[in-house]
């Protein structure tokens, strides 16, 4: 049986525990054994993205200590996985086990598609869904082809969603526009951040979405904050929760 180390981002552990649990259930349903190293805290992205490298370094080192023994590490977050894959070199290059860790840390959907080779998903989710392509998943992990590049189109998240019975994916006018979260950007540049978020929601509403899903709960947290403040007729659901519910319903 394949065993993976489960990497749960700090804010999911504290604020969205259901997203973590849904991740566990989806993985287990596909025959994966999940281990959660309890000493983990945060990948260090907030400090790193603010330029505070020295505050991020001990967290990267801790991450390597906790996860280096696993064949694969899986996380329900594109952004935190990108931190490991694209920004840990500065801290960990040359350390034993780092090359392997970097190559085998996966975002959940990416793991299902690329490592488990797209298992036939048996599930039903009869709703109109808008897919928010989180930027780091899209442009740093290449979960999809992206509208800027002229490459053969592909989209790993959409591939999984298209397996679900009844799910209707709505078509957005700006398919991969940023939601405006951006970590500390959401606070530092509050005015632009919120305008971006509202525009993102308006696009989903115009397309007739009931539910906005995505691979990063942080983007969805920002969008949900706007939805609840403005009582918009939308709901956010992390893709792990969506897959979990769909498969449970099958």
């Amino acid at each position, binding site marked *: 049986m394949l065993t993976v180390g489960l990497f749960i981002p700090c804010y999911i552990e504290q604020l969205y525990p259901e997203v973590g649990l849904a991740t566990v259930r989806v993985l287990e349903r596909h025959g994966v054994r999940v281990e959660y190293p309890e000493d983990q805290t945060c990948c260090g992205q907030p400090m790193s993205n603010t330029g505070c490298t020295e505050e991020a370094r001990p*967290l990267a080192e801790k991450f390597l200590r906790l996860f280096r023994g696993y064949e694969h590490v899986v996380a329900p977050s594109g952004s935190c996985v990108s931190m490991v894959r694209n920004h840990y070199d500065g801290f960990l290059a040359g350390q034993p086990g780092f090359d392997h860790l970097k190559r085998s840390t996966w975002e959940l959907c990416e793991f299902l598609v690329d490592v488990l080779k797209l298992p036939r998903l048996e599930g039903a989710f009869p709703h109109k869904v808008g897919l928010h392509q989180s930027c780091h998943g899209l*442009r740093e992990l290449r979960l999809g082809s992206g509208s800027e590049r002229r490459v053969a189109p592909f989209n790993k998240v959409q591939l999984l969603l298209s397996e679900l019975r009844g799910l209707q994916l709505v078509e957005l006018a700006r398919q991969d526009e940023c939601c405006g979260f951006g970590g500390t950007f959401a606070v530092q540049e509050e005015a632009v951040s919120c*305008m971006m978020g509202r525009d993102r929601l308006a696009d989903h509403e115009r397309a007739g979405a009931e539910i906005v899903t995505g691979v990063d709960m942080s983007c969805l947290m920002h969008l949900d904050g706007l939805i609840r403040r403005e009582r918009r007729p939308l709901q956010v659901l992390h893709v792990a929760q969506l897959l979990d519910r769909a498969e449970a319903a099958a």
Partner: protein
Amino acid sequence: MSAPPSATGELERTVDHAAAAARFVADDAKAHWHDQALWWVRKKRDAASAAVPDWEALRDAAAGLKAHTLSRLGDYLDEFARNAEARGAHVHFARDAAEHNAIVHGILQERGITRLVKSKSMLTEECHLNPYLEARGVTVTDTDLGERIVQLRHEPPSHIVLPAIHLKKEEIGELFHRELGTAEGASDPKVLTEAARQHLRQRFLEAEAGLTGVNFAIAETGGVVVCTNEGNADMGSTLPRVHIACMGVEKLVPRREDLAVFLRLLARSATGQPVTTYTTHFHGPRPDGELHIVVVDNGRSRQLADPVFRRSLSCIRCGACMNTCPVFRRSGGYSYGYIVPGPIGSILGPARDPAGHRTLPFASSLCGSCSDVCPVRIDLHHELWAWRKELVKRGLLPWRKRAAMKLAGAVLRFAWLYRLAGWVARRLVPALPRRLAYGRWNAWGRQRELPPMPRQTFRQLYRSHRDRS
């Protein structure tokens, strides 16, 4: 609408992008109009790039050519100067903006020239040439329509390709009524363009010298290439006897055939056109005329010596990163307070003055769209991220942010402390009265609800799940 930096004076000393952006966003209708105008250009760029087979290979070729040229820039500059002079051009080298301005003024002064027409050149904006010459009695007329509009408003360009993109046609109508005597209330673009054409024609005919920028300079032939859509560079360089072309050292390409790569990328990335309407090659002066080429460093060789930020010197100034940037589209060019705004400007600005432009690398959600749209593959969002590191290293991060990150780092190092802090926050926040939880301190909560504060953490849920199964 944020106040533009003065066209005649220096830019504000310290730029506060967030505050300037908030002022722009406050006019919701205008900010949305600006966003949509630029998105329309981005879509045109998408369509134009899709019509080229192997677009991504073309980007690779351009990035490779630029990296190669920069790796032996000194040699190519020598080759260029030698060949240009052999064709009868005068090549001048300027270390900085002051030398550049003095050289241009010297050429005009020696010939007693007081009327200059200018086509678009971001380099002369960078050197603040217009106020320098005007203070010395030279009448300078910008002849690109957008540039002329902002010049008449005493503003700098708000975008490097679309200098007046922040203005609506009604605002231009008012300006032209005041400055060029068009009918009051006239805002039909055809009418306004015709008025500008008549006005500029007069200026072209009176001009004694024409100044242009340079899009590409060819080492192999000693020629310079200027791309415009209005033909104003051609008018300005062929009517008067004296042509001055100003270029940064990074404009070089090795061979004439390299242009095939860059010309296909430039206009498509900039405006979605297959090619600019006029692409003019200048090899030596016209008969009985003079061609002066002023080659400017102004900090570029310092940038070239920096292994992290070197790649940003490859920029061909197409503006695609601005059109795609969700922050630029919503905050306007002036919020950056630098000659080149947007993602590329947020890399170039701090290089010029790190303290004055320290907020610019943070004016990005790091979405990475700029990197993917860039025709020469500058990894813009990674360079922005690298600038943030650099600013911390130089002690330029505001102390409150620095303290918050130090505290977070300390808490997150220890799992028990992190759990304790989380426990306190999850119980404290829901217990606070709303006006305290959403007080002035809470920038998140001004327009957004805080996330839910669940009783249990994932760790607790996971333990019970594991014990059940």
